[in-house]
């Protein structure tokens, strides 16, 4: 088979056995966490899992175009999931981290706004470059009418392409994805920061003020690492590209929820073991 025909064949089908194994794995990890650290650790782990699922679900909304989008042959932002997630998610994470001292709700909302803002700016500038730089209109190839505005798409789509540019629904999807990703990343950071701030002083035999830089750095690093793991797993789920919430691939999200929950639980458990052992 030629290289052109050898597209990834990961289908939309669910694998019930694997999903069951995933859920069992999740319960085992939660149980292990309850044994090691019943109160503080388990609460943190639940927060981490929620954050990870938010990231995994949010990434489905982001219009990732990949290399075809760079050539104007497919809709979406012309780069991979890893780069987009890192950009939007980390922007949100940094925004949320600034607000960490103002309480959980304010910080998570701030993180969401940071991520959404980053994606809004990215989508706007991407469309700017597409329309005024490459001279192509925004048109989706997956739907006949934009689900939000109702605008007809087919007339604007060039022959031989899957669409191009960022239609309105993709733009909205990108912002929603940024909000969910930023909020999820911030939630992971806050949970870990709270845990480390509470346990590092006794573990390292120092005052809370002294260990604060270490706690911030380790929590931030873990948040980044969990973010990347969840984003890449979602990228595997959508096999690299997606147009936004109207894309048929979006229906695969239940798989990503289970995958993100297992991956976040596993990585979060290891992060909790640092202070629980």
């Amino acid at each position: 088979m030629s290289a052109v025909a050898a597209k990834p064949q990961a289908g939309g089908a669910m694998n019930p056995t694997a999903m069951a194994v995933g859920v069992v794995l999740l319960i085992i990890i939660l149980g292990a966490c309850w044994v090691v650290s019943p109160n503080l650790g388990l609460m943190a782990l639940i927060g981490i899992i929620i954050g990870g699922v938010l990231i995994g679900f949010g990434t489905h909304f982001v219009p990732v175009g990949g290399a075809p989008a760079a050539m104007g042959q497919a809709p979406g932002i012309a780069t991979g999931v890893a780069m987009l997630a890192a950009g939007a998610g980390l922007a949100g994470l940094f925004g949320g981290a600034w607000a960490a001292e103002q309480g959980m709700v304010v910080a998570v909302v701030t993180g969401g706004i940071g991520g959404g803002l980053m994606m809004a700016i990215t989508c706007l500038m991407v469309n700017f470059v597409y329309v005024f730089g490459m001279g192509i209109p925004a048109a989706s190839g997956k739907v006949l009418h934009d689900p939000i505005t109702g605008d007809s798409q087919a007339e604007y789509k060039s022959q031989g392409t899957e669409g191009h540019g960022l239609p309105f629904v993709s733009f909205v999807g990108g912002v929603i994805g940024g909000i969910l990703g930023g909020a999820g990343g911030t939630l992971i950071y806050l949970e870990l920061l709270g845990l480390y701030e509470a346990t590092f002083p006794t573990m390292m035999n120092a005052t809370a003020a002294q260990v604060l830089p270490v706690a911030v750095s380790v929590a931030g690093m873990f948040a980044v690492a969990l973010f990347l793991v969840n984003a890449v797993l979602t990228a595997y789920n959508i096999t690299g590209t997606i147009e936004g919430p109207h894309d048929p691939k979006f229906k695969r999200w239940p798989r990503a929820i289970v995958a993100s929950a297992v991956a976040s639980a596993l990585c979060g458990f290891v992060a909790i073991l640092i202070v629980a052992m």
Partner: protein
Amino acid sequence: MSVKVEVIEGGVPHNKIMIAGLVSTLVCIYLTYLNAFTNTEMFSFFGGLAVVSALIWGSHTIKVLCSYGIGTGVPSAGMIAFGSGVIAMLLATKFGMLAPIVALVLAAVIGFILGYVSNNILNMKIPAMVQALTEMAVVGALTVMGFAALITGGFSFVGLTTSKAVFMGLPMTSYGNSFLGGGLIAVAFLLGAIAIQHPFNACLGPGWKQDRMLMLTAECGFLSMIVAAVMSFALISAGSAIISLIIALIGWFYTYSQYFVLSKRDAAAWLDSKPIPDTEGH
């Protein structure tokens, strides 16, 4: 079922690279223990050499995985490698002398489960997926550990979170001025993540040659080692940092010139084109 796009023609088999990479990385990381025995920091540069050998192994693993056309771009493989590896590495640093072995085992477990998740739950169905993600998590963990050894001279949790300084004649313990407290781990993370994904991303295609890609990996590794050696001036003695820096510079210069030679070898035709001659006279 995915179809493999490229096949490895000739060259060293992957298992051989994996075993050689694993053994040399572990040996180099353990050689930084000479610091503790001799009570100096002169042997920190072995951490950098561990980074280079781990990256060579890792970039070949990425080649094995991404040959199947996973559709997400090569950089994503580097990101998940380090995302899962750094978590295992940080927990492993608490085990003292056993840290590299614990990092190896823990990262392998995390990578195996992530491989199962992506192959079965996410239905990727790529034959090399589980093994490749397992290997890459190990590579990520050992690379960050190598950077830690290079920058701080050791890889114990206490050593990574504190540094001793003398302030107005009194010995002080600083937490902010350390590998973890100062955030140097974030730089190490991305130095490694970029160095592991770049070589295959740059060399893939019909003209892919194993030795050229691996030479580029070594070049990227030494380039990262230069940056890490500069950062190590903050945490280890200047003389030791200069040793690391010189070794990194020599290694980078050698591998870069070798990569240049290999690139010329593989180019269809290499012409030393002169600048456009300005003979028209207008």
